[in-house]
């Protein structure tokens, strides 16, 4: 018992409450799926229950990884970044001649997260868009094969920005000075961002399934509707407003703005990755998460929401 209380005392009480809330939502989702199964025995809910099961795994791993200890959290997000880049590079067309250029791209990940660990903001913010931008081009020039040069370079830089630079912002939230957020420091901010982004995804989906009529992006993601987008937006706004005092230093008005940024940003990130999948003719970015598809399918919204939320809160509070 003392072990447990020692263990729990490492977490801020607000973060514990938030994690308790996440567990509550998952319990509710599990019960709903069980009731649906009993109510409609003929229908197949395999996909849905698989999805909920995967949510349990993802939520547990994420909550533990980002709260136990800062170093573990950074390694975890770096690993997430690695998985996302790997999925991206496995999905897009690459050239054999650029084998070693891709290796250099992967090498950027430990460096980027080292800058974050050192709390070297200036380097964190320019390393990918300036230095890696130049270095990868130079490496390609050194190989000397100019066929499809622009296409290869463009594809690679795009992947670096989305999977390393954007997602790295999740990690930088963790190293922001804890004085800036008395409610629970960096982990609380990250929990706020990730919970709202993921909840926004699910609620846009549920609102769309229930009331969806008018397509919002017919040629990119035909299942998305205005009803889903707006329903999800309203839900996320309400949650952002009520959770802000628990997890963030945001004022009331700022929390409404944060909710807007996360909901709209998340939607735009989602449809951007959808556009790429459509371009490449793939349904999912991978198959690592049963019921969800790949890692990028799950964190597509975060690729936009994370940097947008970060720079919003950084501007106002740090």
């Amino acid at each position, binding site marked *: 018992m003392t072990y447990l209380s020692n263990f729990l005392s490492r977490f801020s009480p607000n973060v514990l409450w938030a994690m308790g809330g996440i567990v509550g939502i998952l319990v509710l989702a599990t019960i709903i799926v069980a009731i649906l199964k009993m109510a409609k025995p003929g229908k197949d809910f395999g996909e849905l229950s698989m999805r909920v099961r995967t949510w349990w795994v993802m939520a547990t791993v994420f909550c533990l990884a980002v709260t136990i200890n800062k170093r573990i959290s950074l390694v975890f997000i770096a690993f997430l970044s*690695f*998985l996302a880049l*790997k*999925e991206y*590079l*496995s999905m897009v*067309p*690459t*050239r*054999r001649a650029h*084998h*070693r250029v*891709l*290796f250099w791209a*992967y090498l950027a990940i430990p460096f980027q997260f080292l800058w974050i660990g050192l709390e070297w903001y200036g380097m964190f913010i320019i390393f990918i868009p300036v230095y890696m931008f130049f270095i990868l081009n130079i490496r390609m020039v050194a190989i000397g094969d100019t066929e499809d040069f622009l296409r290869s370079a463009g594809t690679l830089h795009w992947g670096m920005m989305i999977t390393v630079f954007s997602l790295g912002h999740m990690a930088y939230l963790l190293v922001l000075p804890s004085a800036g957020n008395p409610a629970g420091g960096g982990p609380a901010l990250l929990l706020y961002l990730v919970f709202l982004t993921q909840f926004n995804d699910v609620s846009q989906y549920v609102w769309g399934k229930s009331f969806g009529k008018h397509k919002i992006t017919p040629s990119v993601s035909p299942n998305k509707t205005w009803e889903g987008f707006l329903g999800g937006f309203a839900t996320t706004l309400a949650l952002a407003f009520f959770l802000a005092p628990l997890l963030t230093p945001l004022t009331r008005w700022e929390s409404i703005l944060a909710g807007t940024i996360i909901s709209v940003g998340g939607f735009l990130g989602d449809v951007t990755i959808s556009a790429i999948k459509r371009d490449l*003719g793939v349904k999912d970015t*991978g*198959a*690592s998460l049963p019921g969800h598809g790949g890692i990028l399918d799950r964190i597509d919204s975060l690729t936009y929401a994370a940097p947008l939320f970060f720079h919003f809160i950084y501007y106002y509070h740090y």
Partner: protein
Amino acid sequence: MSAFLRLLFFLCIIRPIIMVILGLNIRRRELLPTQGPAVLAANHNSHLDTMVLITMMPLRLLRKVRPVAAADYFLRNGLLAWFSLSIIGIIPIRRKKADGAPDSDPLEPCYQALARGDILIFFPEGTRGEPESISGFKSGICKLGKRFPEMPVIPIFMHGLGKSLPKGEGILVPHFVDVFVGEPLRYEGKSEIFKEELEARMLGLAKEGDFPAWK
């Protein structure tokens, strides 16, 4: 002793590399054999192919899983020979020399292993060839089938390993690996028909992925 080293090598080094650095997306894993004799007939692009196939099989079958490999390449020096034979557990076969056929059937060690109930990893293309492309099958697979007509031959298509470690490259660049397991096939009728059927299945598996050409 070497059986223990072999277990340690696959458990502590190869599995983590294959599962974490690369990552497998396996379709129809349930079609893999649970006992020998059987042949896993896969396309061949990279030295990692063998490692992936061994990783996919449960550890309790590890001592039965034997990759068939060219003696002239893998036994070319003492250290490599020890590593190939004891740790990877290859069955070395002598490829035909340019100046003529060897005296006996080079697949003889394979027949013996199958008779013991081993599960062979066999690359019907004979060589790694160009990365991410399939070349025509050699006749070896037919000889194995003909000798053991009851034995299942499982076609397996892998994509991504040629990109991760192409022939002639020393640096591993992570890519997710797709592994498509096909329905088991048994030898019937004639060698040519068996070979064509197996090739057709392999191409069918390759088409499932709709992968862009890699060059």
